[in-house]
């Protein structure tokens, strides 16, 4: 199974440890993983700001990097959702369609494609789970509190396989953290207030880490935690699933 590792630009530049964990985890699980060297950004920052017309360059580059894989996997629900919904190429519509239907967020790939039932990982810490909206409501990684349907969660299913991990959830289990792409700077006051409120609910559970399947939410929450001198750290689910500590 040829897996193309799609590493969102800001993870590549600022959170390489998340990408390393994803890469190592997929290798451990027997995938033939490679990282196409000329990838950059999926184009989401432009598209979500109203400039989807400017993202064709990114689309083209994405397609030229990822046109030869069985699956494309990324440790970010948000970027995967963007590709799934908006990747287009007028010259190669079939290639674009293949990519759109074969791009997976890491946890859904592990649960739905690899059908992982056990993971050799341990993480002896108290972890609060942050549900990221695009992964949850966009990719349906877990059931949503608004809908009257049976509950499930792909990321939680995986976390339950990790030795020593104590999982907790905030009271409002799937409220947005306020990152929202460029929202975090254009609506700075609301964005930060939303983040502070998420952190407050996690703090009640006396956690050591806030974990999520999306680094963008974590970057925002980490920024607030660090500014306020909190001891709580943020961690991506790939780092937990790849750890033996």
């Amino acid at each position, binding site marked *: 199974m040829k897996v193309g590792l799609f590493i969102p630009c800001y993870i590549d530049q600022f959170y390489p*440890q998340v990408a390393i964990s994803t890469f190592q985890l997929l290798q451990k699980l027997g995938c033939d993983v490679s990282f196409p060297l000329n990838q*950059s950004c999926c184009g989401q920052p*432009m598209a*979500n*700001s*109203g400039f989807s017309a400017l993202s064709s360059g990114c689309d083209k580059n994405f397609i030229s990097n990822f046109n030869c894989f069985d699956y494309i996997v990324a440790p970010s629900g948000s970027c995967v959702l963007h590709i799934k919904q908006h990747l287009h190429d007028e010259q190669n519509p079939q290639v674009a369609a293949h990519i759109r239907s074969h791009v997976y967020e890491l946890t859904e790939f592990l649960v739905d494609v690899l059908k992982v039932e056990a993971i050799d990982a341990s993480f002896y810490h108290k972890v609060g789970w942050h549900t990221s*909206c695009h992964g949850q409501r966009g990719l349906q990684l877990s059931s949503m509190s608004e809908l009257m349907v049976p509950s499930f969660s792909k990321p939680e299913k995986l976390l339950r396989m990790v030795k020593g991990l104590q999982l907790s959830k905030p009271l409002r289990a799937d409220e947005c953290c306020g990152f929202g792409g460029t*929202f975090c700077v254009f*609506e700075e006051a*609301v964005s930060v207030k939303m983040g502070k409120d998420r952190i407050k609910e996690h703090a009640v559970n006396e956690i050591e880490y806030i974990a999520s399947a999306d680094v963008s939410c974590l970057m925002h929450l980490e920024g607030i935690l660090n500014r306020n001198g909190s001891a709580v750290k943020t961690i991506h689910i790939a780092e937990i699933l790849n750890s033996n500590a």
Partner: protein
Amino acid sequence: MKGMNHAKAAEQFIADEPRTDWHDETLWFVRQKRDKAAHGLPEWEQLREWASQIKNHTLSNLNNYLIEFEQKAQANGITVHWAADGADHNRIIYDIIQKNNIQKIVKSKSMLTEECGLNEFLHAKGVETIDTDLGERIVQLRHEAPSHIVLPAIHLKKQDVSDTFHEHLHTEKGNNDPQYLTEAARQHLREKFIESELAITGVNFAVAETGGFVVCTNEGNADMGAHAASIHIACMGFEKIIPKAEHLAVFLRLLARSATGQPITTYSSHFKKPRDGQQMHIVIVDNGRTKQLGRADFRNSLKCIRCAACFNTCPVYRRSGGHSYHTAVAGPIGSILNPNIDMKANADLPFASTLCGSCSNVCPVKIDIHEQLWKWRQVLTEEGYVDSGKKIGMKGMAFVLARPALYRFAGKATRWMMQTFPFIAKNKLNPWYKQREMPEPPKQSFRDWYLKQKKA
């Protein structure tokens, strides 16, 4: 309200953090009540689907149903008026007022009359309208607009109401007892009902097959007005139409559960024909709705039944307050309706969202609200309603990110600069840094690591 910007107004709202927390928690409580009520119906998701399909069907056959409704209503003795826009709507109502030489008017909740600016219009003509919904009366006394379409005074605390009533209704200063204040409002409004000559109400559902209409309230104020006055004018946006009376069985079950978590509104009043000696009028308003109906991407926003579930669930609305949306209908639904009415004035609204998607999930008629927010962003950008600075920034970003070598150079340069000259990012001009630390820039990118371990 013109010229306001959501981000700035929200920042002012949040400056009072305890009050923001209170606002957030109060509305979250309403959202929880909605969840509980919805959980009580095993067929909830099926009801939403039916409601959506009925509304979609109706929007596709609107011309027929509106004509059918008009014919049936006229046959029942109701006078039907058609208003192309808000000005037309106001003029029609003013004509009825003048023709009948009316002085005393009461009005129950109608977001359409807020949309059309009826109160201000009549005030300018020297005609006073008394809002009889308790929340609306409170904000009217304060010369404010409703901040929520179902809970118009939700931005106010009981001490604010006490102060307002002390000033206008001469209640005891500092008496914050809700029962005392409600009783004062009841006495005040009772007098207005008895005096009234003309009652204006909204319309929740207009039934094509019967020519009748349904008005939902919890206070019975629409009924008090309509039954006491000799003229009843009901105002409706044309999307309020439903084909059959049996469809009420779907919508009435969804409306109050979505809005407040009640199984049904306290009063769901069916009006069909004027009583002896009474005049009954219906004003059917377009005001941009035809235009919205013609926008393929946004047409189904007209399915809205104004329950405000999207307000209550919206994490941005709960922390920014209704007035920050500077429009009659605030919240997520307002952010997809208002750009249709005025793109320039409301270009900020589709950006007042993280696109979290909770609004679409609670919507009882399944409007894809967050997807329409995204689409409005594209339209507003194409039509040139976004800041030119933002445009230049986005163009630059798109240029760099489409060129892998340039992207790698820029990434490396940024990390190097952040390490070497941290003040470049860590300053007050950077909105990220105002209340958040910057991420710690690593020495190498993932790509650097990947190439190294491949060689090894």
